[in-house]
């Protein structure tokens, strides 16, 4: 009897260890799951990566105008100068638009930056299609160097009627340290 009891205990223990290991993996699985969730729902104002315009193009509604506002922020101690060319523009959903952002590095050393976009109201994020954006890549600027960075985007014609103003905000992060350590490895 005691032998079979030992076996039963060992089986229960093993099962529970299995649960522990799978929950540890599940914790990490939450990372991609969260990204997928945000992409599907547009939660967090995250915008998708480069948009490919369908061959037949998008239907343009000539009577509808939407205001797009541009915001720039510097994260924490990021010393760069960073601003949009225009603060806001009126656009027609379905049409391609273009604007530029300006950045310069006033420090005495070469720095790498990454701009992170966010759209408000966030349920409009999935209707902001960017075909070209400086946020798709990192910016490396030497001392005193300045750059004009293009942004090309289309507002999806299916943008809900309730949305008349969209805010596209960029936060500029200093990633010099992380890229330097990555290069060193």
């Amino acid at each position, binding site marked *: 009897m005691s032998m079979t*009891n030992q076996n039963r*205990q060992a089986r229960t223990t093993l099962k529970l260890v299995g649960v522990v290991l799978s929950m540890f993996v599940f*914790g990490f699985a*939450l990372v991609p799951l*969260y990204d997928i969730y945000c992409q599907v*729902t547009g*939660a967090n104002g995250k915008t998708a990566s480069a948009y490919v315009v369908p061959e037949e193009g998008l239907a343009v509604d000539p009577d509808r105008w939407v205001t797009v506002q541009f915001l720039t922020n510097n994260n924490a101690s990021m010393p760069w100068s960073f601003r949009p060319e225009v603060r806001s523009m009126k656009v027609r959903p379905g049409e391609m638009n273009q604007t530029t952002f300006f950045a310069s590095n006033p420090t005495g050393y070469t720095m790498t930056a990454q701009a*992170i976009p966010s759209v408000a109201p966030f349920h409009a994020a999935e209707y902001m299609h960017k075909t070209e954006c400086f946020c798709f890549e990192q910016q490396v600027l030497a001392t005193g160097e300045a750059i004009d960075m293009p942004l090309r985007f289309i507002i999806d014609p299916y943008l809900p009627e309730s949305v008349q103003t969209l805010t596209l905000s960029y936060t500029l*992060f*200093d990633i010099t340290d992380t890229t330097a350590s990555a290069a060193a490895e």
Partner: protein
Amino acid sequence: MSAVIENHHDDHHHGPDKGLMRWVLTTNHKDIGTLYLWFSFIMFLTGGCMALVIRAELFQPGLQLVVPEFFNQMTTMHGLIMVFGAVMPAFVGLANWLVPMMIGAPDMALPRMNNYSFWILPFAFSMLLSTLFMEGGAPNFGWTFYAPLSTEYAPPSVTFFIFAVHLMGISSIMGSINVVVTILNLRAPGMRLMDMPLFVWTWLITAYLLIAVMPVLAGVVTMMLMDIHFGTAFFSAGGGGDPVLFQHVFWFFGHPEVYIMILPAFGIVSAIIPTFARKKLFGYDSMVYATASIAFLSFIVWAHHMFTVGMPIAGELYFMYATMLIAVPTGVKVFNWAATMWQGSMTFETPMLFAVAFVILFTIGGLSGLMLAIVPADFQYHDTYFVVAHFHYVLVPGSIFSIMAAAYYWLPKWTGNMYDETLGKTHFWLSFVGVNVTFFPQHFIGLAGMPRRYPDYALQFADWNMVSSVGAFIFGFSQLLFLFIVIKCIMGGKKATDEVWEGAEGLEWTIASPAPYHTFSTPPELPERSMA
């Protein structure tokens, strides 16, 4: 079969080893339970001293005693030590002492692992406390350690914090596995699951919660470690990560964690109230189902801690209603306890006083929790002292009172002596008054807008803060009386009978007082279905 049992019996005719090594090497569930309880009490006093530093600084507006950097370390360490060092080990200690005695088992199923899971803890907490003396100071980012505050902007000691959390997690997981294996495999022959005392039930469910969420906590601190030292960007927006992701993963662990700290308390109170009301527990089955429902719901409400991060309205609505749903099974429990007391022949010995105070004050904490669940109201309450008042009401007169009730209730069984009833009641009333004077005013200053985790505040909050600090010192110092009562009881006192309490039911009251070093080496004969 009887020969096997007799052999087994003969092997165990020895008492505890002598000297210090008894405690280091012990695999006896009673020894390990005692170690856990003493450890948690030391941590309770340590975390309590930190709370008194906080309340002393907040006695008056302005900065008097400590610098803000140190104040932040105190709030962080107080939270971590109370949650992981005081409340959780106390419940594990009670489980070690009581679960085998309640189900008629000779010991825990995995005694050697039991020893390891305790002895990891002193190392984990030495490591955590040592950060106080390190360059840059101890963790200062709050016990919830939100990234990037705990990654990019953390003091260097954060790495020690991470490893300490890993160790605590390993200890909890091993302890929980032990509890589940014991309960599922070592019950006295004939004891069905629905015959088990509620303390055993609530611990079984708590252990499953721990097994499910402690690995997620280990995962989230591992991600922090990788962000800090290995150049990943799980939580760094600049690298493509997301700080809000941290909050989701943390609270996926954190919400079940708050039930881990309260379900065993439900079990304790469900044991004590019937004894002193001299009636059977009202609605045993519904108690079990309510516990299981609370445990299930705890996995699907986590984002109510983060309503202000900017969630879709549908998400806010879902998390609001799901959270409110928890009030249903919890309400079932509160009404069951009230119904158990209804028309009972009640007496108010110290354990009963703590248990009744638990029911009333925990309900207050539960109701302020419902207020916090209301999304539009939460935007006002978020990160104010109202939240501090809420979770201290469920944790101090909730979890801690239940632990004290348990200590008084089972102390005669553990030591063989009755504690001093007059002193016990004095301890209760000092604690009861102290706790309410401390935390009730925090509702008011919270609703008036005082934010939590700041060493200074606007003048309008001065009066209630002073009251709160006075209460904190009353509560804090009355715990020294508790220490005295426990030591006095261990040293001697009126001999306890085997049954100890007139109306007590359960297998632990059928064995001698003090409980012999080895109990139930042969499984007990169960009385005819008396437990259910």
